[in-house]
């Protein structure tokens, strides 16, 4: 093999391998509900597979010919073709395995695919570099080509392709690229014309097969990976939004899942209340006039819709990291007006970064409907350092209201930062001044609460008065600071360094 062909093989195999890793990480993050160690386990298997592939290649190199020997290019081409077919099957197999067994049972398949792709680099080095004193230089060029391909794979697939194609589409693209790579190797192999034609035909057939089989292989992969053993014919998401940030799925009941994790319900109804939205309405009794509100995390928009219509609210800034949620919101009439509301300003950014970059902005209320505390990177919005940043952005008498998702660590952290706090179910309301509800103000505000001109409680309906009183009772049933402190005694304060909610008790998940 010439050095030029070896460089092409190294470049494209790096591109396919790292693009595959990007896709696989998305799938494993989704199927594991963002479990923090999932990435480490997946990467460990991926790398172990590559190491095993390299070891296998070492054995082959010990037996076979050396640089420039075209006899060995035909088996190398076949190997490249098989490796790509295997990597194409990783996500469909993961989706199917997750419906009958734990998701991690699929990791050997991933290791096998990574190993096959990983073996290509040392084989290309062996057949493309002469074993002399300049070997280090030749190998370094092949490594550099491989790394260049890997970089481009990460950038192009992770940043561009994932924003324009679905995981299925990118998988087909990579499969076709792998077929082209195999064809390039076959074209330089020492084969009779007939066999060369057959080999190139096999590459073309494999490319066509990836197109034809994509439908059945990738059918409802997100449903399979979310519902696991309960997956059935009934499972079909009416809305799936894939972009480079994440995958958002919405069920027929309006349940929103971001990256495979429950992320709320598109509903502003407190009666019936499928998503505990009373916790948003409760804020009407805890602040006299929350004129300026910051919401970190938009999701399905229900909470922001309530806040934007709360009496006294003049401006709402929403910071959301995933613009895909805007498209989801536009589909649901009960929240779609949010996108046209002049009070509401939406910034697509990381919440913590936005706060750091806007040191002059102050708010009466900062609301954070935080994702589950055990999810990867939840620390980013639950660490002491973040809470101190939030505290510095509150006006006098301002309140911070966030979803602790029942994490004692998150509650203990808030108590370590704010002198005053109460707990409303699993939401903690904190501030620098005593946090007390005004029952009369809350009753008045909630009775007259309207969204887009429509009253939230329709008292002409039978049983609505009882429902209202029940909701009001929940809103006023705040757990005081001392009791929170007693219940969270011994829980560590989350910091950027210890990531306590994510890592300290990962086994619990």
């Amino acid at each position, binding site marked *: 093999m010439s050095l030029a062909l070896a460089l092409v093989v190294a470049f494209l195999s790096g591109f396919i391998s790292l693009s595959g890793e990007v896709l696989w990480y998305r799938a494993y993050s989704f199927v594991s509900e963002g479990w*923090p*160690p999932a990435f*480490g*386990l997946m*990467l*460990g*298997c*991926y*790398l*172990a597979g*590559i*190491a095993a*592939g*390299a*070891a296998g*290649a*070492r054995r*082959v*190199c*010990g037996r076979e010919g*050396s*640089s420039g020997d075209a006899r060995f290019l035909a088996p190398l081409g076949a190997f490249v073709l098989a490796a790509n077919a295997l990597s194409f099957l990783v996500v469909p197999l993961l989706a199917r395995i997750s419906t009958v067994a734990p998701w991690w049972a699929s990791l050997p398949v991933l290791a096998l695919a990574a190993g096959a792709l*990983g073996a290509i*680099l*040392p084989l290309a*080095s*062996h057949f493309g*570099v002469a*074993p*002399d*004193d*300049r*070997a*280090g*230089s*030749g*190998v*370094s*060029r092949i*490594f*550099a080509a491989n*790394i*260049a391909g890997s*970089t481009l794979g*990460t*950038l192009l697939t*992770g*940043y561009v392709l994932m924003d324009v194609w679905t995981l299925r589409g990118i998988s087909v693209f990579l499969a076709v690229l792998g077929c082209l790579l195999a064809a390039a190797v076959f074209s330089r192999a020492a084969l009779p014309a007939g066999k060369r034609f057959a080999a190139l035909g096999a590459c073309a057939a494999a490319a066509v097969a990836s197109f034809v089989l994509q439908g059945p292989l990738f059918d409802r992969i997100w449903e399979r990976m979310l519902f696991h053993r309960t997956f059935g014919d009934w499972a079909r998401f009416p809305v799936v939004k894939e972009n480079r*940030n994440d995958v958002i799925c919405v069920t027929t009941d309006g349940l929103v899942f971001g990256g495979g994790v429950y992320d709320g319900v598109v509903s502003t109804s407190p009666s019936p209340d499928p998503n505990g939205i009373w916790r948003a309405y409760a804020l009407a009794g805890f602040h006299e006039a929350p004129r300026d509100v910051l919401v970190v995390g938009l999701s399905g928009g229900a909470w922001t819709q309530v806040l934007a219509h709360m009496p006294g609210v003049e401006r709402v800034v929403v910071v959301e*990291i995933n613009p895909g949620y805007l498209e989801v919101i536009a589909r649901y009439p009960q929240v779609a007006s949010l996108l046209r509301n002049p009070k509401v300003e939406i910034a697509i*950014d*990381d919440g*913590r970064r936005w706060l750091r970059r806007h040191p002059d902005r102050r708010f009466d209320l900062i609301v954070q409907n935080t994702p589950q505390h055990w999810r990867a*990177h939840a620390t980013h919005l639950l660490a002491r350092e973040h809470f101190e940043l939030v505290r510095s952005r509150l006006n006098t008498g301002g309140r911070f209201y966030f979803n602790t998702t029942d994490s004692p660590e998150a509650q203990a952290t808030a108590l370590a930062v704010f002198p005053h706090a109460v707990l409303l179910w699993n939401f903690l309301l904190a501030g620098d001044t005593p946090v007390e509800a005004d029952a009369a103000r809350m009753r008045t505000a909630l009775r007259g609460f309207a969204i887009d001109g429509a009253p939230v409680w329709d008292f002409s309906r039978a049983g609505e008065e009882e429902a209202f009183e029940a909701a009001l009772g929940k809103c006023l049933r705040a757990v005081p600071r001392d009791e929170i402190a007693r219940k969270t005694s011994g829980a560590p304060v989350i*910091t950027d*360094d*210890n*990531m306590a909610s994510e*890592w300290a008790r*990962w086994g619990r998940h």
Partner: protein
Amino acid sequence: MDEAARGEGGGARIPRWVYPVFFVSGFAALIYQVAWQRALFTVVGINVETVTLVVSAFMLGLGVGSLAGGALSRDPGRAALAWFGGVEVGIGAFGAASLPLIEAVGRACVGLPDAASGALVFGLILVPTTLMGATRPLLVAHAVRADRNVGRAVGALYGVNTLGSAAASVATALVLLAKLGLAGSVHVAVAANLLVGGTALVLWRRARS
């Protein structure tokens, strides 16, 4: 060359000590990658642009380092092993200062436009990753001088180095971050670099004498 480095029939083979050295080198590199990514996400944000920036800087650094290591190894008179040891010590030194440096960069980025803060983060990561990228060709060059079969040398070292990274990946996910936190995990990596670098330098001096 000692007897252990001689294969059947008197053929030269890669010295046995190279394997654990390269395993530990790969182990440390992966810990840094995970820890630095976490630390950088904290100070500059966790949006997809930042993730892309960090991953690209890692990749570019490894690529540039690979070319630089290859250039250094081209001269057969140059001691690849000594260079390898020095580079590992350099990575360890950077690692020891890395978390305070990342925090400082994070503070500096607050008032800067996106492009400038991106360049700052990019430049910061490029330094240690270039050093990391140089380690493979340097040690491969040393090994190929012992074992003239390139594929076997690359396969062996690439494999054992990657296996070290695989082990670090699982260890970081299941043990290190949970038990030691970010700073503690980085200290483990620093110790690993110094151990590897020190071992390589001692072996090089012993071979010279």
